């Protein structure tokens, strides 16, 4: 299991202070005008994933969906490198409906064959199965937010079905340890290193430091990021035989 660390792009100083990075997930919404930063993270990471930024829209930001998608597609064409695993689709079903999402997906797929579809419960189980068949051998995504689309005890069923078509499964926003310890997703993403940093915590072996001020925020963030690299190593090692990647 590869845990992609997200939100590294929201504090511009953090990435430039970390030399070797493993897996990072950045949001197109935040990097669309930060080319230097995005390319630095890409070129200094083993693997990269790019989220459309759909969650940012859901917080009420007004967007011209077609224009935004076209810009996202243009970005994908320029940004792509072999170490970019994929680009998540515009999964804003709850705002524009699934039909419209499919149209936007087509626009993105003209730019790249690495577009990752994201299943939501409104699409239904048949559509999940269709997604796995259509994207056989590629990456598909489900969501990991508690009680959003899938109950914790049902993730393995979704994974089993995806394996039938040799799909790799990314569980978006899945940070719950009790699930990560039981379900061998191929990829997940987590911003908890940043949440910890925001609250001034450096988590190491259960010890939490709260010596935190405006002056040391960068140091705390970098330390937390480095701790999160250990978490990446832990889950990679734990599931390496099942995930075989």
């Amino acid at each position, binding site marked *: 299991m590869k845990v992609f660390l997200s939100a590294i792009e929201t504090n511009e100083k953090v990435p430039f202070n970390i030399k070797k990075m493993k897996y990072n997930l950045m949001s197109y919404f935040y990097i669309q005008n930060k080319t230097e930063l995005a390319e630095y993270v890409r070129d200094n990471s083993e693997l990269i994933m790019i989220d459309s930024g759909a969650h940012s829209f859901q917080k009420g930001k007004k967007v011209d969906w077609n224009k935004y998608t076209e810009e996202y597609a243009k970005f994908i064409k320029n940004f792509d490198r072999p170490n970019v695993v994929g680009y998540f689709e515009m999964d804003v079903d709850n705002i524009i409906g699934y039909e419209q999402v499919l149209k936007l997906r087509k626009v993105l797929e003209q730019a790249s064959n690495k577009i990752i579809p994201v299943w939501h*419960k409104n699409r*239904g*189980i*048949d559509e*999940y*199965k269709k997604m796995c068949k259509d994207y056989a051998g590629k990456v598909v995504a489900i969501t990991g*937010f*508690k*009680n*959003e*689309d*899938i*109950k914790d005890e*049902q993730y*393995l*069923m*979704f*994974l*089993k*079905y995806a*394996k039938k078509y040799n799909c790799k499964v990314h569980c978006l926003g899945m940070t719950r340890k009790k699930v990560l310890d039981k379900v*061998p997703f191929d990829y997940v993403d987590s911003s908890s290193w940043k949440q910890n940093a925001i609250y001034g915590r450096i988590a190491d*072996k259960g010890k939490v430091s709260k010596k935190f001020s405006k002056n040391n925020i960068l140091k705390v963030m970098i330390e937390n990021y480095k701790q999160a690299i250990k978490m990446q*190593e832990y889950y990679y*090692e*734990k*599931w*390496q*035989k*099942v995930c075989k990647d």
Partner: protein
Amino acid sequence: MEIKMIKVDDLKPYENNPRFNDEAVELVANSIKEFGFKVPIVIDKNGVIVAGHTRYKASLELGLKEVPCIIADDLTEEQIKAFRLADNKVSEKASWNYDLLNIELEDILDINMEDFGFIEHTIDWDNVEDLTSDNYEEPEHNMLECPKCHHIDRDIHFKKVE
């Protein structure tokens, strides 16, 4: 370099040892049981441990009377402090090549490598139910009500106040 057998009772753990090692003690004890005490403990001239606190704790757990030690009497106090940290730090930089590791593990048939922390996590997919529209259970959202304005919304939209 001389290796001396020294009584465990005469060894002194370094009081400021900055490493957490309790989780590793059982695994090291298993290794000593299986393979013998193959890596000596490094101590200073006063018997204070420089490198090998986990092996020391494992020795206590196993009830060993004597253990092999190397006395680092050629090092200054500062060098000992530095070596104590460096010895632990450098190991952090090493990592596994899992392809080669798996090949090695496959060759070991009669020794239980789980005793040393090589736990093989697998999923018995045959025991996982097949996904169907019938057995999929749509999650129900937990709803909460704001005690002040009585706005009702999903729990994820509320912040926990400690």
